[in-house]
């Protein structure tokens, strides 16, 4: 778009060539490589987009607390089918749980729950009872209402696809890349360098909006995940790995 050999004489005067050359040399001296990679830049853009959506969460969580307390006072128990939920969950569009286990608390950012045991692929490395997403975890304080809380053994990442789904591979040739994130002042921020994810062949994947429609969680395949991430990169996921470091679970975190 900026051919260096173009000349525009409509405003040129003697000495222009010298000025042009000097300016180019000055501009060239500023050259270098960007501080952020493309993925990091896109992740940064994604964080800001999420912050906008999360701005309403504290008030919603507080409202949920009131509703939850009132409902408990009237009925003597929580109205959900599963275990106790956090007040914030009551107020947020959390995917409905189908098992009897409580949800991972995440006020403001709701983690998509794991799929029910019967819906899991046979041979899944993690049984529902042992699933990280089915463990009761203390609720996060309302004041921390903008961050997901990973359960022990899991970590949060921003996930994106490295290539086309047609070239799907697992193990160390996985087509997925992740940027570790952690909660800082209630916000998910990058906490480490980008890394390729090595996935187990039978990795369990659950997705929610925007990768799948609605806020409900649903089981997905790695192939579908890679395809969807191409259109919606840098989604927040909870990742669980086995002892060898292979990823065995990927649960998308629902961000309102």
């Amino acid at each position, binding site marked *: 778009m900026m*051919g260096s050999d173009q000349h525009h004489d409509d405003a040129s005067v003697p000495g222009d060539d*010298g*000025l042009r050359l*000097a300016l180019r040399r000055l*501009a060239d001296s500023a050259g270098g*490589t960007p501080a952020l990679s*493309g993925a990091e*830049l896109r992740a940064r*853009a994604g964080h800001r987009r999420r912050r906008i959506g999360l701005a309403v969460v504290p008030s919603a969580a507080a409202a949920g607390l009131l509703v939850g307390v009132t409902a408990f006072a009237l009925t003597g128990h929580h109205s959900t089918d599963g275990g106790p939920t956090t007040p914030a969950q009551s107020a947020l569009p959390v995917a409905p749980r189908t098992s009897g286990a409580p949800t991972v608390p995440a006020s403001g950012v709701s983690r998509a729950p794991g799929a029910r045991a019967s819906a899991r692929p046979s041979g899944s490395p993690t049984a529902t009872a042992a699933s990280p997403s089915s463990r009761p975890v203390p609720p996060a304080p309302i004041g921390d209402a903008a961050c997901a809380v990973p359960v022990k053994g899991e970590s949060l990442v921003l996930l994106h696809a490295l290539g086309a789904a047609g070239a799907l591979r697992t193990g160390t040739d996985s087509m997925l890349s992740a940027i570790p994130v952690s909660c800082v002042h209630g916000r998910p921020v990058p906490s480490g360098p980008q890394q390729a994810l090595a996935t187990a062949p039978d990795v369990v994947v659950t997705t929610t909006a925007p990768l799948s429609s609605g806020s409900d969680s649903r089981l997905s395949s790695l192939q579908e995940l890679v395809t969807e991430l191409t259109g919606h990169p840098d989604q927040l996921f909870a990742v669980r790995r086995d002892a060898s470091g292979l990823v065995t679970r990927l649960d998308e975190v629902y961000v309102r």
Partner: protein
Amino acid sequence: MSPEEFDEFYAGSWSRLVGQLYVMTGDLAEAQDVVQEAYVRAWRRREELSASGAPEAWVRTVAWRLAVSRWRRARSYLSALVRHGTPSEAAGPDPEHAALVAALRKIPEEQRRVVVLHYLCDLPVAEVAEQTGAPVGTVKVRLARARASLARHLTGDLTDLKA
């Protein structure tokens, strides 16, 4: 624009745009800052970026507006000092560059902008006018004044800078 296309665009145009904004702002750290911010916005508004047909001009315009906005809020200099230490001349030991940067800082921002668009981006006056939203005559006047000011602020003939 897919992530791969965006990354390619980003990698291919970054240093060029930083150079242009460096000349426009006279501050390398500031230039890097606003260009990076402009790319972040470009990714968030990638549909608009693609539809523009000239993504590099789009990012340059956004970066320029960011720089102007910062100036007007009189925060850029202090924040750059806090974040990056001394201004950019320290990074370029070349005395010619330092003299040119100093001279560029002495001319009004809109004159610097037209200088960059005309001399660095090789845009004809009509296109500079279109990108800046100023009449063609105004652009010509700004260019003439910028040339005169730079010649006055720089010791000797501009052609000496070739050496």
